[in-house]
């Protein structure tokens, strides 16, 4: 084994990662086309529409998901800088956000509590295992925080990550229908509720709806992450 061998392995990985990023880009493009053809409906969620055929492809070709994740990690890393970008619409809508501090505080406290407690109560009532319930509890906050919380309270971090993604998809797909059903018409309230319940994937949908909705969703996602990380482990100590 010379350093040439090491270099070959290195380039292999880069090409493989690049290949899977291109595959992801292709299915994302298709998903957007489908969503546009259906009039931009939230039911045609791009994450769902693109991830499902990629999963099918990996299963059909018997490819280990870890191979795909070489490229996936690069995209997940990009989520950081993209999320930081929320500062821009936040700055543009600063007066609007600042004038809604009290409604946001109320929605944050009540919404994050309901998101956690309802998941635990429903899970218990329907006889889910303790590990499932503990992994389910932080489902409404962004992935890295949820994984940390699940580990702290005795759930599986990786299972929690899966719940987070599924929750985000449910929120993004059905949020608009829920708001219609509940007669919630205030764009700020819609965005904030979306961010509380369905974190980043909900926020991605909210930005598709309007900048105001996206901004309030982004703010709610950030605040909910902080509050849940602080409160849930304490809640667990008190009642768990």
């Amino acid at each position, binding site marked *: 084994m010379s350093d040439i061998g090491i270099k070959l392995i290195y380039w292999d990985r880069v090409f493989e990662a690049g290949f899977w990023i291109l595959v992801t880009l292709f299915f994302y493009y298709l998903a957007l086309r489908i969503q546009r053809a259906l009039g931009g409906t939230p039911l045609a969620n791009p994450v769902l529409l693109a991830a499902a055929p990629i999963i099918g492809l990996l299963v059909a070709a018997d490819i280990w998901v870890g191979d795909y994740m070489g490229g996936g990690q690069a995209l997940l890393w990009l989520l950081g800088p*993209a999320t*930081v970008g929320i500062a821009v*619409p936040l700055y543009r809508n600063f007066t609007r956000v600042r004038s809604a501090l009290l409604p946001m505080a109320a929605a944050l406290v009540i919404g994050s509590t309901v998101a956690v407690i309802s998941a635990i109560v429903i899970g218990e009532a329907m006889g889910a295992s303790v590990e499932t319930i503990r992994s389910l509890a932080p489902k409404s906050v962004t992935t890295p925080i949820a994984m940390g919380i699940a580990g702290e309270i005795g759930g599986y971090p990786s299972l929690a990550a899966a719940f987070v993604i599924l929750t985000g998809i449910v929120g993004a797909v059905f949020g608009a229908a829920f708001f219609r059903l509940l007669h919630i018409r205030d764009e700020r309230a819609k965005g904030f*509720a979306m961010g509380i319940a369905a974190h980043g994937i909900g926020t991605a949908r909210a*930005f598709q709806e309007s900048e105001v909705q996206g901004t309030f969703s982004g703010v709610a996602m950030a605040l909910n992450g902080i509050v849940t990380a602080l409160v849930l482990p304490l809640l667990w100590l008190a009642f768990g």
Partner: protein
Amino acid sequence: MRLAGQLFLAFLLLAACDTAGRLVSWWLGLPVPGTVIGILFLLGGLVAIRRVPEAVGRVADFLLAHLNFLYIPAGVGVMSYAALLAEDLWPILVALFASTFLAMLAAGFAFMAVARLTEKRSRGE
């Protein structure tokens, strides 16, 4: 060419804010995720110069418009837990739907109720 350079610099700025936020969160052992601190760094910078540089605005808008793309790998990753999910399929499905609905209901109504109280008062004055 010059625009491409500016867009690249703008992206580096976002990535730098993110990385700086993560480092600060890690150094100080804060329960706040680093990216959230990164948002505050960028927001602080924008407030300081009192405007959004065009390239920064364009990069941020572009990334936020395609946030869904960046979540696809996480969606694919769910397949690794298919067996674990199948064990408690019904409780999981019901909890995901009902709890998301209830959280939106609670947050949305709380927001609107307090907004109605505070905004009516400020209009009345």
